């Protein structure tokens, strides 16, 4: 029965969920989580699993909660910042609890390979008072995902699986097991649980807090939280998830100190205490924020023991862990590699593809803005964020999905003019619409340029929801003045004429929208 398969960490979680009998997969693309959903999508029809991208992470989470209400299992995947968007649904689902098993796999990005920050999702799990699992390798990713659904149904809580880039995007062989059938349709009888009126919520929140000792007990005896002894008790080490691999690598598999590997939360405090009692000093090596370290230190520290980690500089506070970083933190001599043999090694940052419509759109926007001098442009997240770099130097902000629209409105409120924002079609559908609706109500003097390339390009050309005429209809429906809704197909050859159209809208003292519509060249290549 057992098979060996070659899987990315993302795919291992996906396959574990499929084998646990999920009926739905929900998510919004985001590196490094995207391949999880795509793996399920690849076999959704054959397996009878609902797997269609959602408009944003909040929608995805709520859809999954609905499936849980109906008694079935589902997985939600997103990148770490996606959980900020889904946080309202997520935190409240701790209070409602779940009926069918519900697992949220959230992919953190220490080192910010393709993200705005390094936020650590373990805090969210703690905040919502729900269990969290953190696999150290692909095999654990598969096994934990399978088991997470049972944990969810036993505790009636959503379960978080926290993975990081280096696991999500690393491939290894995984031994897989048998599959469970899907749950039958079985809507919950406990509708009280899902109706968070204050009168109900007070009772439910009380229940959630009463579940905590059970969650802790499960962590204390979890096979994922292992305390192993070592001959040298001058020091003990605590590691979480993938950081364990780096520690083991640094000592070539023979760690001389007692080590506690934490992969299930709430943190196993009895095991932490047991380790502390054994050793003179403790080194806490965490992939992520100093979550355990802060907890162990508390306000007063641990009497008579030195606690070392990110807070005292033993471990770097920023960036991801690597075997070399961990070896240095443990005071080991590290093998030096070679120095570059070339004097200057220039950087090679990512760029827009040759022929990308965004490049032409930026050119035209810059040309249209020329009469006003050096105008700042609010922008958003997507391929077009690369417009920050030369030769474009076109954008001056990128904060969170949809921020371009509302930040532009705020700047206009403050008196800036002209105010221009640029957003991609998928980002607009994710979080831009509400900002635009708000601006239109007040006729805020600003122009929103929607870069409609017909796809979610940044994360690998997934299907977008708001493109072409659908997008036009949405914008019209939000109430923009039809005289100030313009559609162009951006081409540098027609820059002068198109810049003229844009300039008139930039000049206009009310809310205007320009849709710059031209397909992504990668999408065309893939025949989409």
């Amino acid at each position: 029965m057992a098979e060996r398969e070659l899987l990315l960490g993302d795919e291992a979680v996906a396959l574990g969920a499929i084998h646990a009998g999920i009926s739905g997969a929900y998510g919004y693309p985001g590196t490094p989580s995207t391949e999880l959903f795509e793996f399920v999508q690849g076999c959704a029809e054959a397996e009878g699993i609902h797997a269609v991208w959602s408009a944003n992470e909040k929608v995805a989470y709520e859809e999954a909660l609905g499936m849980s209400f109906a008694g079935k299992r589902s997985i939600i995947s997103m990148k770490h910042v996606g959980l900020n968007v889904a946080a309202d649904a997520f935190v409240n689902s701790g209070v409602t609890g779940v009926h069918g098993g519900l697992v949220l796999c959230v992919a953190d990005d220490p080192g910010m390979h393709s993200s705005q920050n390094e936020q650590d999702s373990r805090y969210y799990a703690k905040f919502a008072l729900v269990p969290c699992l953190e696999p150290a390798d692909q095999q654990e990713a598969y096994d934990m995902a399978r088991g997470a659904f049972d944990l969810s149904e036993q505790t009636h809580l959503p379960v978080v699986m926290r993975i990081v880039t280096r696991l999500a995007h690393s491939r290894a062989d995984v031994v897989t097991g048998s599959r469970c059938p899907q749950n039958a349709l079985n809507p919950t009888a406990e509708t009280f649980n899902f109706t968070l009126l204050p009168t109900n919520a007070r009772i439910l929140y009380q229940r959630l807090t009463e579940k905590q000792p059970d969650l802790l007990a499960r962590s204390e005896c979890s096979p994922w939280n292992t305390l192993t002894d070592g001959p040298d008790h001058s020091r003990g080490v605590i590691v979480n998830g993938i950081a364990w691999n780096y520690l083991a690598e640094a000592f070539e598999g023979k760690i001389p100190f007692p080590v506690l590997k934490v992969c299930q939360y709430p943190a196993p405090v009895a095991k932490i205490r047991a380790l502390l009692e054994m050793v003179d000093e403790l080194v806490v090596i965490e992939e992520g924020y100093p979550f355990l370290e802060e907890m162990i230190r508390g306000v007063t520290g641990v009497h008579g023991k030195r606690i070392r980690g990110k807070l005292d500089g033993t471990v770097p506070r920023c960036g991801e862990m690597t075997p070399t970083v961990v070896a240095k933190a443990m005071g080991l001599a590290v093998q030096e590699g070679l120095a570059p043999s070339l004097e200057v090694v220039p950087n090679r940052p990512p760029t827009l593809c040759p022929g990308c419509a965004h490049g032409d759109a930026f050119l035209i926007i810059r040309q249209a803005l020329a009469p006003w001098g050096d105008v700042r442009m609010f922008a958003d997240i997507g391929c077009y964020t690369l417009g920050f770099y030369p030769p474009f130097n076109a954008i001056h902000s990128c904060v969170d999905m949809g921020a371009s629209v509302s930040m532009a409105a705020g700047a206009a409120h403050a008196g800036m003019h002209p105010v221009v924002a640029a957003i991609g079609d998928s980002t607009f559908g994710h979080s831009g619409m509400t900002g635009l609706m708000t601006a239109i109500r007040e006729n805020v003097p600003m122009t929103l340029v929607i870069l409609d390339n017909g796809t979610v390009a940044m994360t690998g050309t997934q299907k977008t929801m708001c493109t072409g005429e659908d997008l036009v209809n949405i914008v019209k429906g939000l109430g923009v003045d039809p005289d100030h809704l313009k559609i162009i197909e951006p081409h540098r050859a027609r820059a002068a004429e198109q810049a003229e159209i844009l300039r008139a809208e930039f000049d206009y003292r009310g809310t205007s929208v320009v849709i710059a519509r031209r397909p992504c060249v990668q999408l065309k290549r893939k025949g989409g």
Partner: protein
Amino acid sequence: MKHDIILAGVGGQGILSIAYLLDHAAIARGLRFKQAEVHGMAQRGGAVYSHMRISDSPILSDLIPEGHADMILSVEPLEVQRYLNYLRPGGVVISNNEPVKNISDYPDEAKVDAALMALPRAILVDAAGIASAAKMSKAQNMVMVGAATPFLPFEWQEFEPFVQRLFGAKGDHVVKANMTVLEAGWRVGAFAKALLDAGVSSAVVGRFLARVEPMTLDPATAGAFAGVLALPGTWAFLDGEGARVACDPGLLKSLSA
């Protein structure tokens, strides 16, 4: 047995296909492997890399520690420079010599090549030349897989079923052409490895490879060639030939004379 490899290149050069072939060859041999790759932001023509670890025992970290890589395999010559801190003493660099100049401050090409040939164990492969001779100009990555093979626990023929899986949909002739350039890469890699092992410097190996027809390289004769490369007349002869020459017994005879 362990092989730690840094795969390097520029987004769009097909390093994930290289990883695919190595991964599957490893698993077919019952070996363990881990391969960490970079997706997302880094793919749009930017620098891309992958950490690839193959071993006969369980592998701990997905990332290779600095100073531990046995090989840097790069589809672009400048990209090698970014990862030299990972190379262990005695490790080998195998790089395509075809630059991707999508940045305005790309250094002088000759300097980039010279910097690689100054490394203790480096092989510069004319992957573009080999691939385009087979009318497969997009298959430079396959040439590089071949060139790396002599340093890995695989025979070049073992990649065929996986090349079939990658390109089978495009027809048998595409699979065959990919295997042809992969074999040509193997000839270069195996010949160069024998020369390096015989104590010939990276610079001399590079100079010799630039003068001969890759498909005519017979690794079994490399030892004999290692001897004649030190002879003063050799370079006068090789550089005197206009085009690349066949590396055959006839050449060996003329050089030894």
